[in-house]
């Protein structure tokens, strides 16, 4: 394999970095290994799981399939760029509060895909959320907490402070006929 290196300027989370890297390396590898941005994870490095999703020019892209050398002149956004100052982005806050991140490994990729969705659609329906995220696998949550967190964050981003996730999402459904006996 050729180990030819290249020097490029990559703009990541609004900051420009002049870096040298192997020409054949993916954006995923360069983000993690050259820039130390290990928030972007990998689950297969073959474009199958969505874990390594980042935004390029606002669109969700699998960073394992994107050559870093081709990202020059484009805006790359990773999970590290989501916080505003020391404050969590509403998506991050809702994910943390509702338990949409369990092991947290697929979380950065899902956050990026969700962010792209909410940028183009501020009130997505449940079906639209499912379609937007169908390429991201999560083995922990069963997906519901993620969907509910996105709905909650969308409401907060729209300025709807009254919106709250359904009580049953946190406490479970109330038990039918509270007088159930232990048969």
């Amino acid at each position, binding site marked *: 394999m050729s180990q030819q290196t290249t020097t490029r300027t990559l703009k990541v989370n609004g900051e420009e970095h002049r870096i040298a890297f192997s020409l054949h390396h993916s954006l995923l590898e360069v983000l993690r290994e050259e820039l130390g941005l290990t928030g972007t994870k990998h689950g297969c490095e073959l474009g199958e799981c969505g874990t390594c999703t980042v935004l390029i020019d606002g669109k969700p892209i699998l960073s394992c399939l994107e050559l870093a050398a081709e990202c020059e002149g484009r805006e790359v956004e990773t999970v590290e760029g989501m916080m505003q100052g020391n404050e969590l982005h509403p998506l991050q806050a809702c994910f943390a*509060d509702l338990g949409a991140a369990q092991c947290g490994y697929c979380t950065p990729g899902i956050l990026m895909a969700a962010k792209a969705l909410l940028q183009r659609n501020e009130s997505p329906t449940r079906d639209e959320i499912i379609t937007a995220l169908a390429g991201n696998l999560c083995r922990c*949550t069963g997906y519901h907490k993620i969907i509910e967190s996105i709905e909650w964050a969308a409401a907060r981003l729209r300025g709807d402070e009254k919106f709250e996730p359904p009580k049953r999402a*946190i406490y*479970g459904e109330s038990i039918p006929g509270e007088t159930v006996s232990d048969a």
Partner: protein
Amino acid sequence: MHDTDPVEEKTVVPTSDELRLIGTPFRRVDGRAKVTGQTRFADDLSFARMVHMKLVRSTVPHARIVKIDTAKAQEMPGVVGILTGDSMPDPFGILPVSQDEHALCIDKVRFVGDPVVAVAALTEDQAHEAALTVEVEYESLETIASVEEAVANPEPRIHDYGDEGNLHKKLSMSFGDVDSGFEEADQIFEDVLFFEGNTHLPMEQHATVALTEETDRVTVYSSTQTPHYLHRSLAKVLGLPAARIRVIACPNGGGFGGKSDPFNHEICAAKMALKLGRPVKICLTREEVFYCHRGRHPVLMKIRTGVKKDGTLTAQHLQTALDGGAYGSYGVASTYYTGALQTVTYELPKYRFDSIRAFTNKPPCGPKRGHGTPQPRFAFEVHLDKIAHQLSIDPADLRLQQLVAADSVTTNWLKVGSMGLGKCIEAVVAGSGWRERYGNLPEGRGLGLACGSYLSGAGLPIYWNHMPQSGVQLQLDRSGGVALFCGETEIGQGSDSVIAAITAEILGIDLHDIRLCVADTDLTPVDLGSYSSRVTLMAGNAAIQAAERARDLVAKGAAEKLDVPARELVFADGQVFHGENPDNGMSFSDAVIAAESRFGTLGTTGSYTPPRSPGRYRGAGVGPSPAYSYSAAVVETEVDPETGLYRIEHVWMAHDVGKCINPALVMGQIEGSVYMGLGEAMMEEQVFRRLPKKRSNALVHKHPSLLEYKSPTFAEMPPVTSYIIEDPDPNGPFGAKEVGQGPLLPMMPAVANSIFDAVGVRVDQVPIAPHMIRQAIEARDRGKEARFGPKSFPQIDFGVPLQVPTPAEGGDGKAINIEEAGVRSGTGTMTERKDSVKGDN
């Protein structure tokens, strides 16, 4: 350290019934780090001078190694080190009775993917390129692909140990007079069912970084669920004192049991670091993760049950045959687990259980969520559905009428404490409209009900010892902060949050004033690991003890200052105050200062050891638990009879968790279990095919990739209505039991049962593919049995069963025919008590 006799100990300050944190949906302590990308998983670590390692894996399924040629690799650019098996001759394995793995294969390879050579180079690319140049010459041996082949072909043996031929484990046990139990029955039902193997598929690929700090001291960071057991294996294979090895379990990017074994790559990384004196990293490729496996055993089952006209069960005879793959792993325990928990849900007065585990030339199977119990639970719950249908009894009633009683001892001597299964069934029956809708939905639409139960931690450790199974140490300082040290491992289940919340609750302080140091064998007291749903109960109880001792110390210091009896103090909201006069108080940090002034540096410890189980027979070590969780599910399914395609429309799941430490996290575990259970019911399978003879005859994994190994996506996940049932168990911290594994168990049988209600045919195996439903429908239309599934169970001589009289028969928990049943190898899962007690000294 606060030195108190744990037996005599009574806390000075009583714990209030008024809980402030426990039971509330607080944000998990690692929540912020996980949504910002700050959580450091093993592959996120990087050190100066770090090199990268790759493993050369076997391309053949069963062969002698004739020659290994690493000369070319040695000359490749960037290569700094190469290891072969002869440098690590000591075998290892998770169970003391199955020390059958080598860090790198020495004389034989046993499956495609078995590691043979380790190559380290300056970059990952270079290590990869160099690994490709290693030449290994093999002399192929006949392969074993299935349990049937293993039974039929005792030679050539895959291993030179085990109960016989290619059978790793063979057991037979009989609880009570089973023949008389069958005689009491009005009818005997028999079914043969199959549960295909599947894998954990954690999103994080296993990774390890090892580095040396002294000539003979190595630190290993790894994505492991069991740092303590890895620590022991490293000491054994590296030949170093355990005190010179430090294992730090990084937060796991999902485990589900798949990171519970000590692995080749972990040992090789440590060995390579010791050889090179520089940090070594390995991160497995996704394909390699499929070869590590240790997932769900494929199990063929024959279940035979005697039933009275009214549905009362009189006796059961269960036979299971496990396809173990190429190594022992947890397999002996898995084998026992395919029988052990059949007795904890419904009264089963007599019970016989026979099982074998075969070695086959495939990646080793081991523990996956539910460890060995989902397969027989699937068999039992589908079998009960058939019995209910035959006897015209509602499946919910059939179960409700014979639930195991709370505070009882089962036929096989398991002690059941709290038992909320009745409430679980009632909840899903009411929620789903079962009474009105079951059996009455239009053709193609169906409801299925099933239940399950799981351990809140295995009663015994993996190796025999008299030490606690979990320990917590607290260090209080004058800032008012509390450092909590515990060996437990966060794998996403929320264990960090559980122990932090318990400690904060008892000390009455803010969750954020707890600083956690976990899963570090240098710094933290041992916790056996994140397996068998043990951490909430065991580390939770250890945290309670440590926190209560700390509270007593602080109370004594504060009491003196406040001039009130210590026992009348209340710890809440960061304050310590007199219960009768809340104005008379001080801040927690001032109270700590008072205590530190009086006692000196403040620290306490807490330990947990499960109660002793009443079973005294060989094999009684598998099954006992301090508490059993219970679950019930109803699944609604739409089936297209023309194509066999089906869709899960809704799931109702009730789980008896004892008591929620954090309901939001409990909900996450329930929904995650439902999801994973649906994957196993509908699509997930780890399967192999044999290449044609002319193309090496190898047994290869059909689809070692995330794309082709099908798992449910957002689009396949149905709506789930969850009910949290709280039936507190006296052995649980604040009454809590497990939730991480139990709710998976009812899913597979509930799906199968719902398909029967929808189209009137049985699919007696999982995963259920549309063509199976079609074939069953076609069979029915041809006047044959309306069923798809295995036809028969192989003829196996299980030997004379170990006879254990039941509690109802006046037994004492011991077997009565040890001589006759013969002494087989593999005494349970552990070393003999006498051998290991020696090792304790």
